[in-house]
């Protein structure tokens, strides 16, 4: 066989094999695209979970359970009656995206939240001066939507893991929304309220006749009784007596008492 003929023969075989591979891949394309979308959706939820933790937990709680400042995002109410309540015509996911994007100028339920719902939720979209890109907001919305199984009871809500050695008061502090306004080194950064580092060392000197423990307890339950100079009264929610159980309150006070200089 001449070289030309051999090359034509082998070339034809390679072309046929290549076509075979393409046809084989073509048959797999619909599944491949589906899988890719599924994985992409999963990645979006993971991505959203991280963003939620970094941006939203200070007011909505570490597990979106809501705090004294902002509503629960894993509760039945959001997935059932909320859209009717606000008169939103579109999908719940779009509603969530819209709320994150623009934030709220005024609370829609001022009676539930301290300060008459002011300040309400800030804007998050970078187009409106916030820090987040559109795809990040969509990821957070996807993460919130993924709570549906727990919210509607389709999936049993698991018991939380108890981390050995974790201070229960510290958990209360971050779960109740305190981190939204107060700074404790290593836990939160916020300047709405006073910084709490070293609180135990100065709490006893604030109000005559009040021990450090009593002062802290009073500041939580009746925040306007004494306001540190430089801060306005009426900003801190005054409904913690309803939000916290006695045990949680004790844990929280004990935790704050460990914050010595």
């Amino acid at each position, binding site marked *: 066989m001449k070289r030309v003929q051999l090359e034509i023969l082998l070339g034809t075989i390679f072309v046929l094999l290549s076509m075979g591979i393409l046809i084989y891949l073509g048959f797999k394309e619909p599944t491949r695209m589906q899988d890719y979308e599924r994985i992409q959706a999963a990645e979006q939820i993971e991505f959203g979970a991280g963003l939620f933790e970094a941006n939203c937990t200070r007011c909505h709680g570490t597990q979106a359970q809501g705090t004294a400042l902002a509503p629960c995002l894993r509760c039945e109410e959001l997935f059932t009656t909320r859209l009717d309540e606000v008169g939103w015509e579109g999908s719940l996911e779009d509603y969530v995206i819209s709320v994150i994007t623009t934030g709220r100028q005024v609370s829609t339920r001022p009676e539930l939240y301290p300060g008459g719902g002011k300040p309400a939720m800030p804007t998050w979209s970078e187009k409106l001066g916030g820090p987040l890109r559109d795809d990040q907001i969509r990821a957070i919305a996807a993460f919130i939507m993924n709570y549906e199984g727990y919210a509607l009871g389709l999936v049993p809500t698991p018991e939380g893991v108890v981390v*050995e050695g974790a201070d229960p008061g510290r958990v209360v502090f971050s779960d109740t929304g305190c981190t939204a306004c107060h700074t404790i080194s290593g836990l939160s950064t916020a300047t709405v309220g006073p910084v709490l580092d070293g609180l135990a060392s100065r709490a006893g000197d604030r109000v005559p006749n009040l021990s450090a423990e009593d002062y802290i307890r009073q500041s939580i339950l009746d925040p306007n009784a004494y306001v540190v100079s430089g801060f306005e009264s009426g900003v801190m929610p005054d409904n913690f007596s309803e939000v916290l159980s006695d045990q949680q309150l004790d844990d929280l006070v004990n935790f704050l008492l460990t914050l010595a200089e």
Partner: protein
Amino acid sequence: MLDSIRQKVRIPPWEELRQKIYDRIDNRVRIITAGLSIKELRAVLRGDPPTERPNPRYRVITTSFVAHLRPRYYPKAATWFTHTFRLGWFTTFFFVVEVITGLILMIYYVPHPDQAYQSILTIESNVWFGELLRDTHRLGAEAMVIFSWLHLLRTYFTGSYKGPRTFTWLTGVILLLITAWLSFTGYLLPWDQLAYWAVTVGTSITESGPGVGPALNLLMRGAPDIGAGGLLRFYLQHVVLFPLLAILFISIHYYKVSREHGISLPASVEEGDLTPEEKKEHNRRIDLIPDLLTHELFLVSVGIFIMLVILGFGLFNSPLETHANPQQTPLDTKAPWYFWWLQGMLKIDPANIIETLLGYVGIHVELSQLLDSKFIMGLVLPPTLVLTLMAIPYIDRNPSRLARKRPFAITWGIIWIFIVIALSFMGTPAYGIETPAATRIVQDLAPEEGLGPLRAIPYAELQQGAYVVGEDYGRDLCPDLVYQPEPDENPDKLVIGCPALTTVFGEYSDRLLAAEDEGELPDLQAQLVIEEWQPDLKKVTTHIEWSDPDSGEVKTYEKHFFLHREREYSE
């Protein structure tokens, strides 16, 4: 009735009719093939000698535009596979692959930071053969870089840059630069972390230039930081400016080879002591039609087949990291591998080396103010190297092309190969970058991008719990766990316990405890906490506490990872 028609219309006899039809078709074929008759075409495909005189195959080369760019023939020895390895040919082949796949990708790609990343996801998830297209484009780009380098090396070692080919070599070096820049500009387009930071680091080199440096940097980036303007500039360079330049220089480069001086003969044929018969045989004409052309079509089929095998069976995947985030510098910034040598050079501080060397002979000077290492290693040295590369044919005055008659050039070439390899190694993040122990251990466990051992653990094994480093958990972390790894395909297969999680936790513990022993993490307290977070979503927390060896202060390093059941990592 038929007879009456036949009487009215004269129908010629069959033979005559057949000849007429044949002549008409033959005429058409000659026009389409620019000179080959049907008979001739058949002879071409069978490898038979020409059927007419003068040789109609040469007529094609004068009449057809495309064919006239090609040579009529090459001397036989120049077509030896072991002489050229078809390296230049394959470089061109990959360029054509890039043009075709690139044009299709342009239909879907949007060069704007808001949409670029999403458009890549759309190409992958919503376009038929979209992944194949993108992978082909990426693989073709890397192959083009590899083959152009190999082509350069081959030309260097066979001494083909000498004689009449000096200017061809120069255009070749320009093409090498164009290839590198084409692939670097394409690197930014997916707008992921990999792209964003590689290009940020790459363009920052220009910043150190004297006078015009900052302006040049601004010109490339379109703003102090790469954003919409920078992406558009890179995109237009990638799809318009540099492809056009590449076509221009390929034309110059190739036309010189095909029409002016041909492919070089192997040095052993050109300069060797050969008998007249051997010489005649080595110089025998190999015609474009049919020999070279069928060979090239054969190479096309081989090239496409190999690429499809590599891509169809998932041996190569285009990377795609998370969305570019200017606020978050990744732990390991990596240039594309073909620029590692440059990144490696940037890690060298010439002032420091000179100071140390002079220090040995007792001279102590302060040079770091005088010699800006980024400027020298990034802006002075690389252009000098490129200019030297271009000037090789003019520097090397040795007339011989035989390897044994140019020992200096050959040794020099081999030394440079080793230098580039060593520099490339220095360019990888493994070299010369120190990360704190806790950060490094967690990064290796679950890297910022890609898989890593933690994410490779089957979802079912992520048993909720707080696992404390240093505690004895027995042979398995979850003795009560039983799960089906492949519930659909193989429901009988069961895994008892969590072997993968146990291994990963063991590795994590071992490395942390080793770091504690070495004094990097004294008074270590570490945990791995796994929590059910949402339906099909778990949260893994790595919590590490230690006292700082210098200050004694308690330090904490905590990272959170979210793992979804459906997530599979393509690696």
